[in-house]
């Protein structure tokens, strides 16, 4: 049910194309037009939420390549985001670099650190690798706190806003354009990386590591490459986040976020770019809902109720999706599309 019935492929390129029918193209252009005109309809509050969602989408797309496609489970993604965040923060704040030079450096640095902590993946997998990435999260944050004369330690670091041709991206709308364009490019890249030779190698590793190795997939190189790509995404997301709030502190990258990014993958559906986006968007919206109704519940029940409610809801969502819909929202989305195409005749 990938395409409506009656769509025929006459060449390989046609068969592989993501956008097949005219409806696809119209929907895509309409959606892009909507995204580019968002600041016209929405106020600052909605734009803030959308910016944060875009940043999360970038981060989760990276995690999806690493975990969903290559099966290297990482619970240290917020730590890798912190690496990117502090790299570009330090380069712009202390060395006066422009944001546009610092962003690739942040991505590269996060990728390098990712490779470093991915090294155990050469010998171990599954649970052991999870341990290595959890360790990465705590060690990275500890390092940032220790080198306080350049990172600001626990006090945080003031980061300048990016500027383009002398125009500072101060307003919510202008920053939203920056983040949204990068998120679109990241989605495009993620969708295409997994269709290349590299992506097929990742999928082979995910489905059976030993069989992949026997087929000639270089585990050593591809595991580290998966870590590199996943962490580059994290680095970009981290950098965008700190330049958005103009401040970097370790509190922006808690361990709970690392867990929650995996939760977004579970809810969205592992190994699917659409799933990563759906998961990030739906759970971030849920977070917003909790911040809205939290104070009401706190006032009604007990002061700590808001914090505990958000934790309990997060945990329950992961549990419920694992039991009742392990393939995530992406699967539901596929089913909805199939239903729409077949209705009213199932043929």
């Amino acid at each position, binding site marked *: 049910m990938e395409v409506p019935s009656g769509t025929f492929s006459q060449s390989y390129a046609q068969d592989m194309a993501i956008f097949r029918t005219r409806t696809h193209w119209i929907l895509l252009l309409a959606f892009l037009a909507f995204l580019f005109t968002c600041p016209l309809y929405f106020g600052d509050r909605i734009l803030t939420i959308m910016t944060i969602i875009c940043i999360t989408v970038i981060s989760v797309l990276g995690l999806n390549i690493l*975990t969903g496609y290559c*099966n290297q*489970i990482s*619970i240290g993604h917020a730590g890798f985001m912190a690496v990117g965040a502090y790299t570009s923060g330090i380069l712009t704040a202390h060395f006066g670099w422009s944001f546009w030079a610092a962003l690739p450096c942040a991505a590269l640095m996060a990728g390098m650190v990712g490779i470093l*902590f991915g*090294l*155990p993946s050469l*010998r*171990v997998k*599954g*649970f*052991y690798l*999870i*341990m*290595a990435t*959890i*360790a*990465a999260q*705590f*060690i990275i944050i*500890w390092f940032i*706190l*220790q*080198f*306080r*004369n350049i990172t600001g*330690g*626990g006090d945080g670091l003031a980061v300048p806003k990016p500027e383009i041709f002398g125009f500072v991206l101060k307003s919510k709308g202008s920053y939203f354009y920056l983040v949204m364009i990068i998120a679109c490019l990241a989605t495009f890249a993620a969708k295409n990386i997994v269709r290349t030779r590299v992506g097929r190698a990742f999928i082979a590793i995910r489905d*059976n590591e*030993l*069989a992949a190795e*026997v087929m000639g997939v270089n585990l050593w190189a591809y595991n580290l490459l998966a870590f590199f790509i996943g962490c580059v995404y994290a680095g970009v997301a981290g950098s965008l986040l700190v330049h958005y709030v103009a401040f970097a502190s370790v509190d922006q990258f808690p361990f709970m976020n690392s*867990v929650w990014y*995996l*939760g977004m993958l*579970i809810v969205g559906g*592992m190994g699917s770019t659409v799933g990563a986006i759906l998961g990030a968007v739906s759970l971030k919206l849920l977070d917003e809902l909790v911040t809205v109704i939290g104070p009401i519940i706190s006032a009604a029940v*007990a*002061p*700590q*109720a808001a*914090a*505990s*409610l*958000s*934790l*309990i*809801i*997060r*945990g*329950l*969502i*992961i*549990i419920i999706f*694992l*039991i009742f819909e*392990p393939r995530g929202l992406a699967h539901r989305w596929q089913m909805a599309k199939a239903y729409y195409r077949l209705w009213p005749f199932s043929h």
Partner: protein
Amino acid sequence: MTFFLQLVISGFTLGMVYALIAIGFVIILKCSKAFNIAQGHFVMIGGYLGFTFLVTFHMPIWASLLVAIAAAIVMGLLVERLTLRPLVGQPVLAVIMMTIGLATVLEGLATLIWGGEYKTYHGVLPKLTLKIGEISVPSEMTIGVIVSVVTVVILMIIFRYTKSGLAMRATAEDEQVVQSAGIRVTTIYALSWAIACVVGVISGIILGGVSGVMVGMSQVGLKAFAVVLLGGVNSIGGAIFAGIIVGVLENVAAGYLDPLLPAGGGLANVFPFIIIIVVLIFRPYGLFGLAEIERI
């Protein structure tokens, strides 16, 4: 020298607690092949239960331990039946994510019930003065070591001499053979979760006596993974040995290196994670573990 001995002794107590947490983890891992990220949260719940029974209800330590154990058994059985049973046969990631979800829910519940504040029950425990050389060991630590040694001995006896212990060890070896011998594997799963929960709650009560209780205490479960990895994931003896090594090393390293570091150190919080990375790179299956052999 006195400073060093002090560090070693408090490290030893901490190490025994780490070993207990690691044992709870290893029991579940061996029996039901589930990596339980929530073990640290059982510890936290245990600490809060200890606070409730010892301080709020003014119970003596032995009664508190017994009631807490009963509560832990109920919690373990519920957790297994409601969350892990539907996932039998699912991939590793699903089970790990399930325990993460469980951990999040437990943290939320603890915040809701106990308010998430720092609680302590110093001075509630009976006084036991013990002197080693010039150092007097605090009574919380002495009680902690006694309770954990007793727990380990009881566990050893259960595993070696009882029928369900034998069934558990057999399940760890091969589930299908156990099933064909007429043992209900689901019962064994439930039993292993109940035991792990009890062990976690006991270590929580000990740890709460030594250093107080708070929601962030569940991080100790993550630190205990260093013990699990160092000792090898399928060895209970290894867990005890590695627990003491990690506890002592962590304390000594923090005691001597923290003043040298900028920003006040805080080395104790990351030292176990450094151990994890080193072990994973150089000896992934730990000191006493068995390397996994895999077939296509």
